[in-house]
């Protein structure tokens, strides 16, 4: 078997590690939380960084009128199916198809992942901006508009008394590596043919 096919198969399989490792983590630091509050986002679940963190994030957030972080979101059903399908497609390509298809798979993965990130951003935006009008505390930006509490999409940001961090986790790196290997296998396949 050609090396490029092995790499392509590996590329297709790596995203499956999303079912093992978390995709993203949001951390909230504040003086009264010596152990910061945190939540992991998995492909099919939210989870506590420490026991009861999400419950305590909800308790804090309700002061400014934010909704409770739901137990489940529709994406938890769609994303896993998406990953399984792209993996199956990737494996079929690895076994049967021309190396050009490796490139198509790579492009598809980039598009799918970008869609996922956009979806994540929209969810975050909504979560941070769709506030209860009866909120206990109301804050405005210097320009007079209502302050939003959207966590950073990527990186760190101050939100009132909290410093929020938002960074990809091992699952996301596996996905990224998988995608990158897709591109590499394309080039390897090209070379092997020449």
């Amino acid at each position, binding site marked *: 078997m050609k090396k490029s096919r092995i790499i392509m198969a590996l590329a297709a399989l790596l995203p499956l590690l999303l079912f093992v490792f978390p995709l993203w983590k949001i951390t909230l630091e504040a003086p009264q939380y010596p152990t910061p509050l945190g939540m992991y986002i998995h492909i099919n679940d939210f989870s506590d960084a420490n*026991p*009861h963190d999400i*419950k*305590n994030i909800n*308790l804090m957030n309700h*002061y400014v009128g934010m909704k409770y972080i739901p137990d489940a979101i529709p994406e938890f059903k769609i994303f896993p199916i998406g990953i399984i399908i792209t993996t199956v497609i990737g494996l079929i390509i690895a076994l049967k198809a021309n190396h050009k298809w490796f490139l198509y798979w790579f492009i598809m993965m980039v598009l799918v992942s970008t869609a996922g990130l956009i979806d994540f951003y929209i969810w975050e935006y909504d979560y941070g901006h769709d506030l209860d009008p009866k909120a*206990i*505390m109301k804050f405005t930006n210097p320009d007079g508009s209502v302050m939003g509490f959207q966590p950073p999409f990527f990186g760190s940001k101050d939100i009132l008394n909290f410093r929020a961090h938002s960074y990809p986790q091992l699952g996301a790196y596996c996905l990224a590596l998988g995608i990158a290997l897709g591109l590499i296998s394309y080039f390897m396949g090209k070379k092997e043919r020449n």
Partner: protein
Amino acid sequence: MKKLKYPIVMSLALAFIFIGCGDQRKSSNGALTSNVADRVYVAPGEHDEYYAFISGGFSGQLSVYGLPSGRLFKVIPVFSQDAEKAWGYNEETKPMLNTSHGFVPWDDSHHPDISQTNGELDGRWVFINGNNTPRIAKIDLSVFETTEIIEIPNSAGNHSSAFVTENTEYVVAGTRFSVPVPQRDMPISEYKGNFKGALTFISVNPEDGGMNIKFQLLMPGFDYDLSHPGRGNSHGWFFFSTYNTEEASTLMEVNASQNDKDFIAAVNWKKIEEYVNNGGGTMMPANYAHNVYDEETHTGTSTMKKEVLVVNPSEVPDAVYLLPTPKSPHGCDVDPTGEYIVGSGKLSADLTVHSFTKMLAAIEGKKYDGDAYGIPILKFEDVLAGTVSQPGLGPLHTEFDGKGNAYTTFFISSEVVKWKLGTWEVVDRQPCFYSVGHLMIPGGNSRKPFGKYVVAMNKITKDRYLPTGPEVTQSAQLYDISGEKMELLLDFPTVGEPHYAAGIAADIVKARSKKIFELKNNHHKYGIQSDADVRVERNGKEVHIYMSMIRSHFNPDNIEGIKVGDKVYFHVTNLEQDYDVPHGVSMIGANTSELLIMPGQTETFVWEPKQPGVWPFYCTDFCSALHQEMQGYVRVSPANSNIDLSWSLGE
């Protein structure tokens, strides 16, 4: 280049010398001694190195301090009601203060001792005695709460306790006052020969610490003052100091101080345990309370026990011996190796130290100096290891640093004296301010003392603090004992009478500390898991409110349909699951106290409204930015009204 080499070497050498000097300065007691304030200063955000559990004496409680800072962290309610924590006021803890004399919401708490495994402190539990209404309590150090109290029958003035054996097999409860056993109406003048002193051995379940009276040894009618377990070779033995071997019952200061020597009673508990396990001893009718607090139901239950196993020492030959000890000994302290038993004769000019090895040899040789009620008395000279000659006046209590030194408090001369085991020479002495009672070295009652500090507990302070009227604070003093000479570092005020203490390295306890109670493990009879369970139910004149609390509201916050003459139970569950976020609740006109409810916990109090009206309740613990808004109302209607029970939140 070569030229430069030497100055570098030189400066390195100099640096080493300076570093070396710096280190020396720390441990020496020379003129260069650094500011003592630095050595007790624990910077903001940093933790103390040791926990000190100092009994509250007549406060009936146990207080928790940090060492070396002397900062007070918590007063753990044990035998006395405490409105701060609703201890003895809420329905869950009222059973904990039940006794055969009924509800006794006070005691005199004296001697805490920390549980051990293989002779080393394990930081699981602290045991402490109640003197007045004889009781032993167990405090669980994962939550710093009293979780068990057992009453001691046939006992009075439960003083020579609560000390634990090397693997916490037993905690003992020795009576100070001998009394008729069983209690009966008889002339006090017939004390001699008729009164008995019960030494009670309470077994401790190694899994959960559950206590159970295994047996009581019915000893002659002396006064049993203090006790200590053997360890190492002497593990299996327990030593009790006695006074009033005269068996006097009146004008004790004179009549109980006639004998030149009293005794330290040496009890081979392993032998008695074996005898009892083989069916020995006599079941005797008794009546005593055994109160257990369950962490999952958050509720205490009190059970009355009806019998106790008693053993007469003459039934088990070779199990009990008396070691003559001058004169009215108070402390009877066993060194970390288990070889030396130090008897502090309060009225003696010398300190008497017995040898365990010599004691065994004397027993082997059966060289007795008579007997007391059939218990062999060993010859003083045969068991004596040595004498610390004229070390001070009024020796009370000795602890050990694990480095071959002993430290004894002297009440009358008000000082701590350091002396050497084996050579019996006095090494150092430091004054105490004033009238020192007991002292404590963390791990002192174990095979492995942490010999860095000693805490002396003083009865009188006079000019040491700002005056607070005729009653001035009692006090503890902290000495550094890491050097050859002791050094006074700190005075710190204490709760009640700082009678006795036990200390432990903080890391051992910290690792086991609980942050919250898991709500899902809350099995309180009236607990709720979520707001969906919130309700109010009427049962005749009883009304039960199943209420929740979370930042920053009660659910329900408005209740109507209560009537004058009702007995209203507030069963309140704290739904929080965050560290250090308790809420309180109090009700106007309630005759008990507020409740202070930890995350995941349920507590109950009773309110009997006596007047119609609309009465508020509120959170008593500052819990959040909206703590002040954490409030609600109960509408109380006349007894004959027919308003339906209703409740709401946010309507």
